[in-house]
């Protein structure tokens, strides 16, 4: 390890860090402070209009806003389903591919491909699949499953689920790659010893793979929670939050309140609530996956 003692070394480090630090402060910390101020204010978005302090009014309004409550419900659903499906599916795929089965490189590429596409393009592609006369319904009709033909992105019971399923599909490859990297760090000797002791593949999976990957799984869950809370482009490309606000998430509502309805206070309050929610869920997830204890 390089030890830093000299003043000139510290200056050098500062020289390297300063540009990134300035950019971070300018584009993250200052806007965050701005959002905190606006969240307790009323402002219509005109530079010449005064910013009026209203205390917690914006938060109180949100708690009684039907549209916000719908968006919150959608977001919770998005987080729960993403966490429940992303990591387990990614883990199974990673283990299968890590076993170096025939064509594992091809499978790895196939599962990773959705991750490299822009989410807007993915959203548009799935919009054309899910639309009433889209590919999915045409397929269902072609195999005589007419009773299952539904307007996926319009129907109250299917619209949000359709978007969540796309979010799961598009994210699995990303988490698979992270877990593959984690699998590569597990020493082969552990599996060899387990084989000598007579442990079958399932036992090896639960007694070696999962415990050894626990920190990586924790990271995946944290990233998944944050990623699911931040989803915006997928919704915008597939439904724009509609029909009639049915598929709004707090992120899309934040956009509408701020940029369409000239209500920057309410929009900022949504942003602050999302930040608090994300932080709480991350702490909770770290606690549950043992990160806190491990770090101690």
């Amino acid at each position: 390890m390089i030890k830093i003692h000299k003043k000139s070394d510290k200056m050098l480090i500062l020289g390297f860090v300063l540009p990134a630090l300035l950019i971070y402060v300018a584009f993250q910390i200052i806007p965050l402070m701005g959002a905190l101020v606006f969240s307790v204010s009323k402002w219509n978005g005109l530079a010449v209009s005064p910013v009026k302090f209203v205390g917690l009014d914006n938060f109180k309004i949100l708690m009684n806003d039907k549209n916000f409550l719908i968006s919150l419900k959608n977001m919770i659903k998005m987080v729960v389903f993403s966490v429940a499906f992303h990591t387990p599916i990614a883990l199974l795929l990673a283990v299968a591919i890590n076993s170096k089965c025939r064509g594992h490189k091809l499978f790895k590429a196939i599962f990773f491909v959705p991750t490299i596409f822009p989410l807007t393009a993915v959203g548009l592609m799935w919009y054309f699949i899910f639309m009433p006369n889209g590919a999915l319904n045409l397929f269902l009709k072609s195999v005589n499953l007419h009773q299952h033909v539904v307007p996926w992105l319009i129907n109250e019971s299917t619209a949000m689920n359709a978007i969540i399923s796309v979010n799961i599909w598009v994210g699995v490859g990303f988490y698979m790659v992270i877990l593959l990297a984690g699998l590569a760090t597990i020493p082969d000797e552990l599996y060899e010893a387990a084989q000598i002791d007579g442990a079958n593949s399932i036992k090896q999976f639960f007694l070696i793979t999962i415990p050894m990957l626990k920190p990586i799984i924790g990271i995946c869950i944290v990233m998944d929670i944050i990623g699911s809370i931040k989803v915006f482009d997928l919704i915008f490309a597939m439904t724009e939050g509609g029909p009639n606000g049915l598929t709004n998430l707090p992120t899309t509502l934040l956009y509408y309140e701020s940029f369409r309805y000239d209500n920057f206070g309410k929009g900022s309050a949504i942003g602050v609530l999302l930040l608090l929610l994300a932080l709480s869920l991350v702490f909770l997830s770290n606690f549950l996956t043992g990160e806190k204890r491990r770090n101690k």
Partner: protein
Amino acid sequence: MIKKIIKSLTLCSICLAFLACGDESKDNDKVKIRLLTRMAGTSNSVKVYKDIISQFEQKHPDVIVVDESQGDESSFNNKLKTDLASGTLPNIFRIQGVANLGEYVDTNLLADMKPILDEDKEWGEGFNKGALNYYTIPGKDGIYAIPMEQGLMGFYYNKDLFNKAGIEKFPETWDEFLVAIDKLKDINVIPIALGAKSTYSVGHLHNQIFYRWLGVDAAKKLGSREIKWTDPEVVQTLEFIKVLNDKDAFSPSAPGISNDIATTQFKNGEAAMIFTGPWNISTFVDPEKTPVYANIDFAKFPYFKEKAEFKNQDMQVISPYMISGNLKGKEKDYTIELLKMLTSKDAGIRYVNEAEFLLPRTDFEADRNKVGELFLANNTLAQTSDGIGVDVFDFDKIPSMQDRTRNSIVSVLMGASPMEAGEEIQEEISRKE
């Protein structure tokens, strides 16, 4: 030594990063005019617009025109809001609505155009009075925009499909219209192409129904709270949307498809009519974009027999140019000059003859050899309007009413009752006031 070199390079790179703004001293001597309009893309009207700007620049070498116009509505709105929030309003721009313009006037963001119109009689008196008066704001003196586009909203319909269905002429009344829809369904075509994922499409349809049933002034009364969205007469306008939906006038896919897809259904002959504005004329007459181009005609929305007094209360598109209220000196003079060039009689003649795009001026006529029948049909019928409204929510001060009204109308297509939709809209008003 190596450390010193690295240190020097790092510090140099930081300095360069902060100084990399370029030498703008040459540009600083010039007057800069920024435009943020919806005139972007590759259409003929945009070509004329760009050409006029180019002529202006050639005439004034000491002016730089920065055209930041956006064709896409969302991109445009985002850019405008950012400019408004940062206090860097463009010289020429546009804001949707009328009643909501009051606070822009109060904060001096909008210039009153009346003195400028009065000063230059030749330019000012050439405008269509109805279009110009649209930008008089309740409670304020003056005119706060120059109209730059006008045209009648109505039904573009496929004559061939109408003939096949046994409909000799486009229905004039609502009752005849409902009969026509049944006949069109009998020949297995979609009677009305509608893509309500783009909520404005169903919003436009409702606007026209509203004006036919209650007249344009009723929209103003909604804005001033003299009437409510839950009043039976207003709910009735939503009921008509439900009637059309229940009659399967639209495709069952309508709530889930975009307006582009619905327009394609019409262009391909899968749908018999579409309710839209004159901006589509250039594609409707293009054989490559519209295979059924030879069969397309234009008609006004049918009227209600019991409301014959509103027979010609029409939805028209009226788009504005506004100028910043903070301009002074040469910058103001040049901005006004450019605005006049973009909306002059000469510009109007070019727009109509080269792009079938109508400037709302009355001091010129389209060259009948240069414009198509569809444009002429729209233009001729537009002259019959005795009341003009754009969007019903234009008269409402609450900015969220654009989305609220359109979304609630979409909910009617999805099974909500007209009263539920009306209550939802009224609830938004109660919450925001």
